């Protein structure tokens, strides 16, 4: 009122009197509860009299009121001029916006002035008041539109280029027989690669900062006119839509629980990958920026800022939570371990951010939901991890593995384990309290790294122990002792190579590696003994007769043929190991044979000797080459 009154210039003596009378009458009416009927009648007559007087007077003399009327009319005109204008004031320039806010201020001044006066004023004043409310509402509606348009036109998105999520990348493909996880796949399948870029975008602006003062001015104006609810509604609407649109940009589809349970593994794998990325971007970057924006605009109204922020983010948050909840409904298949691990890891990582986003009571349900989801993912991941071991233990074969090569179970398990060191921290915390029997129970001997005795390391070794027992069982299926040794040798060698050549080395430790090298070397010895000792015994001569010598030579050739026929079909995929085997066999066999022939060739007679030393040496090189059928191609070597 003070503000309004101060703008009424006082002019002339008469005016003073009228004003004074007017005020007295108004004051009396304002407290008219105790006035008797006569007095009331008198007052209203007087009031009417004064007001007609006043109007006439105003027309003639009162420059002050007409000044206000003029200003008011101009203000309404300005506001009206923006009513249908589609461009934004922001575009039109700051002075335009200032003039609009000034017009709004003028209208508001009139309103405040009238409101401060007692209600029963004259008709003309009432009409002015009514017009003012309409003008105010038009202005508010216009500001609402301005808010939406400016926010929309000046929004900024976290660059989608940096967020490209290749959800189609293949990694572990589920296969009941463990056949699928081969060495090549691993090259592609290492995650975590985009993390660095995400951190660059922390607290990026969702709206060009240049418009913030303008938006703040809109907020202040609307709040001052008690249009705070429409402001929030509009603000929530635009920002919600922007977030929804952003989720579409990220290609984060919504899936129902039914969808998630029916999805085939490849699609689900892609969706899970995407989720881990999107959850991070949304909580750590987008929503952090959104909260900042809310605070920048509505910082003076803290609880309103919080409420708006929750309303804006809730829907997107719930859709992310729902996907997490749905995924946990899937059964714990071993092939899902890596995805579960990364989902769990992200869910645990973002808890800090979620706590910051929703620190108080208002957002507690969302905060708690994230914490619960993380717990669920933890349980599910642990179960999946433990089931992996069970799956290995229960993998049974009925027939011996062809050629004694590297069993697909070995490949699957070792390549699988190679993916896990990336999740060391998560796995250690998940497995912390789960006991497991470990082949290296205490810190002894050569291992000094603490990582070798971490819960994860113990569990990984235990998984490999399970694999070893499974391989032992599979080895028992071979009738041939030598092939059994080759099989074990191959598989143990493969395990050692995988551990040595990867991050697993720090976890398994040198002692484990040493033990396992010793183990496959024992198999090499076993092989040589079971294949060659009886054959080489034939070449040991004890002053035999010519006939016996010839017989021994013949038997040797037959036995050698037999070995050749069989063992060229065996497989030793590791070339280094194969070379070692060739050399050590060659040394023993060729030397013995050469000695035998040197001593006895003349007595036996050339025509009774089928193979020369060179023949034997060359033919030994064919062993373990996994040839498709027994060779007769080398017949040229025969005489």
């Amino acid at each position, binding site marked *: 009122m003070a503000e309004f009154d101060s703008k009424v210039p006082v002019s002339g003596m008469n005016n003073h009197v009228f004003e004074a009378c007017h005020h007295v009458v108004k004051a009396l009416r304002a407290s008219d509860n105790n006035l008797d009927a006569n007095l009331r009648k008198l007052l209203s007559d007087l009031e009417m009299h004064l007001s007609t007087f006043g109007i006439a007077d105003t027309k003639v003399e009162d420059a002050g009121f007409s000044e206000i009327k003029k200003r008011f009319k101009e203000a309404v005109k300005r506001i009206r001029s923006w009513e249908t204008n589609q461009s934004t004031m922001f575009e039109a320039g700051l002075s335009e916006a200032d003039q609009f806010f000034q017009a709004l201020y003028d209208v508001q001044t009139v309103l405040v002035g009238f409101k401060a006066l007692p*209600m029963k004023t004259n008709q003309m004043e*009432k*009409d002015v*008041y*009514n017009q*003012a*409310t*309409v*003008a*105010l*509402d038009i202005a*508010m*509606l*216009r*500001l*609402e*539109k301005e*808010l*939406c*348009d400016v926010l929309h036109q000046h929004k900024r998105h976290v660059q989608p280029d940096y967020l490209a999520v290749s959800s189609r990348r293949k990694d572990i493909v589920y296969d009941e027989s463990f056949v699928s996880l081969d060495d090549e796949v691993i090259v592609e399948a290492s995650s975590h690669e985009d993390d660095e870029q995400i951190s660059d975008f922390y607290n990026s602006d969702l709206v060009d900062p240049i418009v913030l003062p303008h938006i703040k001015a809109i907020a202040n104006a609307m709040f001052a006119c*008690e*249009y705070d*609810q*429409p402001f*929030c*509604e*509009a603000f929530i*609407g*635009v920002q*919600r*839509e922007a977030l*929804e*649109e952003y989720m*579409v940009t990220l290609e984060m*589809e*919504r*899936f*129902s*629980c*039914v*969808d998630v*349970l029916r999805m085939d593994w490849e699609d689900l794998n892609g969706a899970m990958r995407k989720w881990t990325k999107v959850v991070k971007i949304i909580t750590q970057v987008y929503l952090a920026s959104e909260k900042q924006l809310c605070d920048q605009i509505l910082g003076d109204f803290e609880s309103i800022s919080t409420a708006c922020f929750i309303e804006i983010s*809730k*829907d997107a948050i*719930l*859709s992310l939570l*729902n996907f997490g*909840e*749905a995924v*946990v*409904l899937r*059964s714990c298949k071993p092939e899902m371990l890596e995805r579960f691990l990364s989902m769990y890891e992200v869910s645990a990582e973002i808890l800090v951010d979620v706590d910051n986003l929703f620190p108080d009571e208002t957002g507690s*349900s969302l905060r708690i*939901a994230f914490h619960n989801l993380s717990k669920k993912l933890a349980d599910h991941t642990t179960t999946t991890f433990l089931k992996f071991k069970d799956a290995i233990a229960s993998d049974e074969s009925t027939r011996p593995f062809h050629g004694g090569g590297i069993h697909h179970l070995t490949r699957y398990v070792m390549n699988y384990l190679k993916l896990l060191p990336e999740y060391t921290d998560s796995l250690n915390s998940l497995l912390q309290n789960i006991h497991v029997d470990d082949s290296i129970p205490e810190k002894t001997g050569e291992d000094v790294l603490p990582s070798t005795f971490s819960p994860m390391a113990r569990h990984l070794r235990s998984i490999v122990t399970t694999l070893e027992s499974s391989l032992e069982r599979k080895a028992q299926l071979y009738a041939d002792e030598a092939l059994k040794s080759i099989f074990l040798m191959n598989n143990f060698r493969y395990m050692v190579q995988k551990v040595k050549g990867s991050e697993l080395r720090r976890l398994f430790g040198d002692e484990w590696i040493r033990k396992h090298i010793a183990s496959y070397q024992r198999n090499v010895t076993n092989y040589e003994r079971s294949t060659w000792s009886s054959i080489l015994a034939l070449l040991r001569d004890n002053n035999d007769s010519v006939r016996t010598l010839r017989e021994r030579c013949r038997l040797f050739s037959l036995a050698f043929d037999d070995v050749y026929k069989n063992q060229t079909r065996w497989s030793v995929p590791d070339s280094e190991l194969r070379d070692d085997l060739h050399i050590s066999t060659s040394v023993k066999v060729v030397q013995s044979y050469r000695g035998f022939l040197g001593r006895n060739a003349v007595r036996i007679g050339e025509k009774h000797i089928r193979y020369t030393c060179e023949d034997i040496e060359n033919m030994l090189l064919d062993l373990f080459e996994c040839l498709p059928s027994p060779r007769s191609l080398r017949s040229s070597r025969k005489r």
Partner: protein
Amino acid sequence: MARPTEFQGSFLSRISIRRNQIVSMDVNHEHELEELEYFQKHVAERFSELITSPSPHHSSSSSSDAAAVSHPSDPILSIPWLQNLLDVFMSCEAEFKAVLSTTQISKSPSLERVLPEMLDRILKALDLCNAVVNGIDSVRQSRRLAEIAVTALKQRPLCDGSVRRAKRALTSLLIGLNADERRDRNSGGSGCSNQRRTTSRSWSFGTRSNVTGGGSYGQVVSKNWSATKQIQAMVANLVLPRGAEASGPVMPVYIMSSVMVLVMWVLVAAVPCQTSSVLVAPLPLPKHQNWASAAVNIQERIGEELKRKEKRCGGGGLMEEMQRMEKIGLSLMDFAERFRYPADEEEEVVVAEKVDEMEEICRGMEVGLEDLQRQVRQVFHRLVRSRIEIVSVLDQAPAI
């Protein structure tokens, strides 16, 4: 009521113990029958608590004492009533698990058939819960719009400006409440929200504005997902067990499934959610069965409401508070359209009463919706647990 209904522990352990026990078939079956009978009685009692007036189908004997605990003040489909409904559901669910724990899965191949069907229904119910949680958010938006109208119409003196403002909020509110399909959405539309939706911005997301009107609460579950279809799919293979099966372990599964479908059906009718505006066909509940009579009664009453609403507009969103909000909203809208400044004093008084009532609804919704939403989430988590337990029961059952 003497028995504990809050049985929370895994019934799995009980099953496996039982399976290894050598119990005489007769004793076992007798026990099963007892359990079944108790379960049916429990369902009947708890559901009859939800009806204030006695139903014509109702057998009065079992429900007389239960009526004492009921909340006769909560009108059907109101937020407190829906909360009671969810309480009833949770208690039936707990009771069901107790019943199931006494049955021997390995001896009942029929159970092995119906449990997976039930799992499937639970899964669909989970999606429905999510849709309802989101639908409640759209009701919350309606509440906010109603509050804008309340604030505007509380201004004194009532002037064209505040009536304009109220009219705008009411227009959005009524569209949101699905009440005013015929009204041109542009007329008196608000500054941006409506204009933005009608100007063809390229980033409009499918048909969502049809779903809940003014709100931007659209495809929340997934593309092409429909609450109505889910309910239909849930009842598709729901068949009343006959003959010997009617007294066997299949029966409680059937009853619990029916209860679950009914509760979901009610939620979907009460809360606007993705494509729930299509009239949902009545559920095939067995009227003549004791346990179902109260449930059937509830269903019939809601079915009538649904038909009435369907005739008037899209259907869906039968929540009592929403309906009242809509009614008051329409009359306030009527007032706003007729309004000429200065306000008629008498009319001003009438409007003030309505505005007060609207404010009262808003106040009730403020806490109620939050609680209801939390409870639906609880149901979600309860169903997840049940699902896990049933899955592990099925996993453990030896293959036949």
